[in-house]
């Protein structure tokens, strides 16, 4: 009897193992079909599924932008019936971990998102990104945007949308206290004093993730030291990161902190959960220096606020070398192709579709963003204004953390957060940056 029982149990456990394995397989299957947009029209897919060329796309755009990318991919598949595209939208922070793992595991997506700059360069240096020089029409994109995907004269991707850093402010509060958007930095300081005197926090900021504070340093260094201040130091041609302009920028940040320019506890506030925007929505703070994505967030989070909201550029600093029209900005997304793709020709076609004038136009009209593609019509009032800022700009300074090698980028953000927290002196912050630059970028 016991033998019978024993064999029965063995049989059961073997069955269990098999079912476990089946589960694993099933999960993987359902996973991939979930992400493949073509699974809805499976009728036509079944006929030729054997010969279809499969491409995967990873992107991070959300909301309206996500819908537009999905529609573009559907249209691409209709135009290319032999290609099946599986597009997967991944959350921003998850993406930063997921892509390196996929690259390291030799299983990268065919087309992937990046912000250009130092992050993309890591993958280019690792031989993971396809050179698309001459394969796409470089003339149809803004040069400032294209620069961020160009390394050693070769092009490694195409840009779609841009982000610019501007002040978003509450027009009603400004009107109430007779304030005008500042032309000069002294104007800004006067505005700060007036608002403080009236019990309104002048500037909102959520600096837990460090990049919102870094925007201030980048702008101040530009306004004080001029357009070339960063590039001269980054490219190691005469400039350094302990240049007096960087030290001055650090001092100005600490003066602002001393002047109570920012909301209480800004270094611990979280931008993603809206802890800085809360101040503007409730009228407790008057302005915030942020990227143009702010508009998209306000529209989905607090549409009532849009009518009260205005934008202005970062003012000029008297005696500084930078122009008041210079902008701090970046590109997102830049789409690149993996060097391991099995279908390079189809991938290039898809890359063109994902950075096409048509999609860019819809981004402008429906998502209210500025794009990196030329010859696009602007109708949205905020987008028109942002486009004007972009047109006036003689120079676009990319975000430092997207240009520097990742380790220096982190140091730049760490030291800037420490500057805001007054736990480091401007000289010390500049010294640490220059020291890192010498070991990572050369003398």
């Amino acid at each position, binding site marked *: 009897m016991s033998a019978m029982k024993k064999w029965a149990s063995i049989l059961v456990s*073997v069955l269990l193992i098999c079912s476990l394995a089946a589960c694993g397989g099933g999960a993987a299957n359902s996973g991939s079909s979930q992400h493949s947009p073509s699974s809805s029209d499976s009728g036509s897919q079944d006929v030729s599924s054997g010969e279809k060329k499969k491409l995967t796309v990873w992107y991070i755009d959300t909301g309206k932008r996500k819908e537009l990318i999905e529609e573009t991919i559907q249209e691409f598949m209709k135009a290319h019936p032999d290609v099946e595209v599986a597009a997967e939208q991944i959350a921003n922070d998850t993406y930063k971990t997921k892509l390196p793992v996929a690259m390291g595991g*030799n299983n990268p997506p065919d087309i992937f998102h990046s912000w250009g700059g130092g992050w993309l360069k890591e993958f280019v240096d690792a*031989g993971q990104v396809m050179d698309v020089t001459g394969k796409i029409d470089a003339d149809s994109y803004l040069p400032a945007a294209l620069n961020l995907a160009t390394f050693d004269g070769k092009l490694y991707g195409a840009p779609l949308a841009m982000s610019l850093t501007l002040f978003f402010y509450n027009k009603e509060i400004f009107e109430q206290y007779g304030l005008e958007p500042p032309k000069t930095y002294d104007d800004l300081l006067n505005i700060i004093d007036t608002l403080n005197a009236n019990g309104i926090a002048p500037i909102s900021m959520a600096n837990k993730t*460090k990049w919102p504070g870094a925007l201030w340093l980048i702008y101040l260094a530009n306004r004080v030291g001029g357009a070339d201040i960063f590039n001269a130091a980054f490219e190691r041609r005469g400039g350094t990161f302990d240049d007096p302009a960087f030290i001055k920028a650090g001092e100005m940040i600490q003066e602002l902190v001393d002047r109570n320019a920012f909301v209480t*506890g800004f*270094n*611990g506030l979280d931008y993603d959960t809206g*802890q800085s925007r809360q101040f503007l929505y409730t009228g407790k703070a008057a302005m915030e220096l942020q990227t143009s994505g702010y508009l998209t967030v306000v529209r989905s989070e607090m549409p009532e606020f849009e009518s009260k909201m205005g934008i202005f550029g970062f003012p000029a600093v008297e005696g500084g070398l930078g122009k008041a029209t210079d902008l701090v900005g970046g590109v997102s997304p830049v789409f690149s192709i993996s060097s391991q793709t099995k279908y390079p020709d189809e991938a290039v076609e898809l890359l063109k579709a994902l950075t096409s004038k048509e999609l860019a136009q819809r981004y402008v009209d429906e998502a209210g963003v500025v794009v990196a593609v030329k010859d696009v019509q602007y109708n949205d009032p905020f987008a028109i204004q942002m486009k004007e800022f972009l047109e006036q700009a003689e120079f676009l300074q990319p975000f430092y953390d997207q240009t520097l090698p990742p*380790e220096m980028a982190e140091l730049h953000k760490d030291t800037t957060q420490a500057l805001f927290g007054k736990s480091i002196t401007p000289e010390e912050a500049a010294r640490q940056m220059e020291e890192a630059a010498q070991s990572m970028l050369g003398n």
Partner: protein
Amino acid sequence: MAGDAARIRRQNKLGKGLFLLFFIGPALLIYAVYNIYPIFATFYYSLFDWTGIQAEKTFLGLENYANLMKDRVFFRSLGNNVLLVFASVFTQIPLGLALALLLQSKIKGMRFFRTVYFLPFLMSTVAIAILWMFIYNPTFGVLNGLLSDLGLQSLQRSWLGEKSTAMGAVIATICWQFVPFYMILLRAGLTGIPEELLEAARIDGCTPWGTFTRITLPLLMPTIITSATLSTIGSLKYFDLIFVMTEGGPDSATELMATYMYKQAFRFFSMGYASAISSCMFILAFIAAAAILSLDRVRSRGGY
């Protein structure tokens, strides 16, 4: 005859072993693939200069470890981990024990409180982190609001934004999250103490405090040791709540070994160095667990 019996016994033993293997097999396989293999792979990767995003690796020997010994941030994060271990062991377990004893007592409505006390442990870590970020919010937060209502404006802080308070604020949240877990564990231990012993003590005229120190606590020791081991190891490899609440900031004030490892691996693309950090974490946790368990053995031999 005797030889036959021995042979049969041996055969039975073999059959039993095989039989057991069939049951443990699948779990063992999964454990080996997802736990044991990665541990060795981590040690292996820690000997290389490797970005993690390309195939080529350069063999470095122990250079990653040598650099680690010179790394200020690593030692700061190690210090924070040690602080977390002590804070966890000496607040979570005593508080858990106090709550467990409270639940044992016959107060009306205890079942309701039992559920309430256990709630924090049922929430996902990210939800807890975001909840407490709002509680600590310097302008809109409940904590500063409460202080202001009590007229204690001078105690108001931007809890997560200042270097001096960030670690304490995060540790308080971690304790809030894990006290219920130890409460349940210790309550199970309390239920295991025979009622007769407590009754005998009462008949002999022992005070409640005497009963607690001479009967309850010694009999609960094995559970407390288990809790301490879990709490120590958990604190040494802690990651998620801190990562969501502060990302190790401000200015590395709340950096832990695990958050630093994450940054090295996925922000700086130094997978080899990150593997060295992670190997150190493994060794430290292993030593800590071994130390607690051997202390426990000494204790039980001494017949505490």
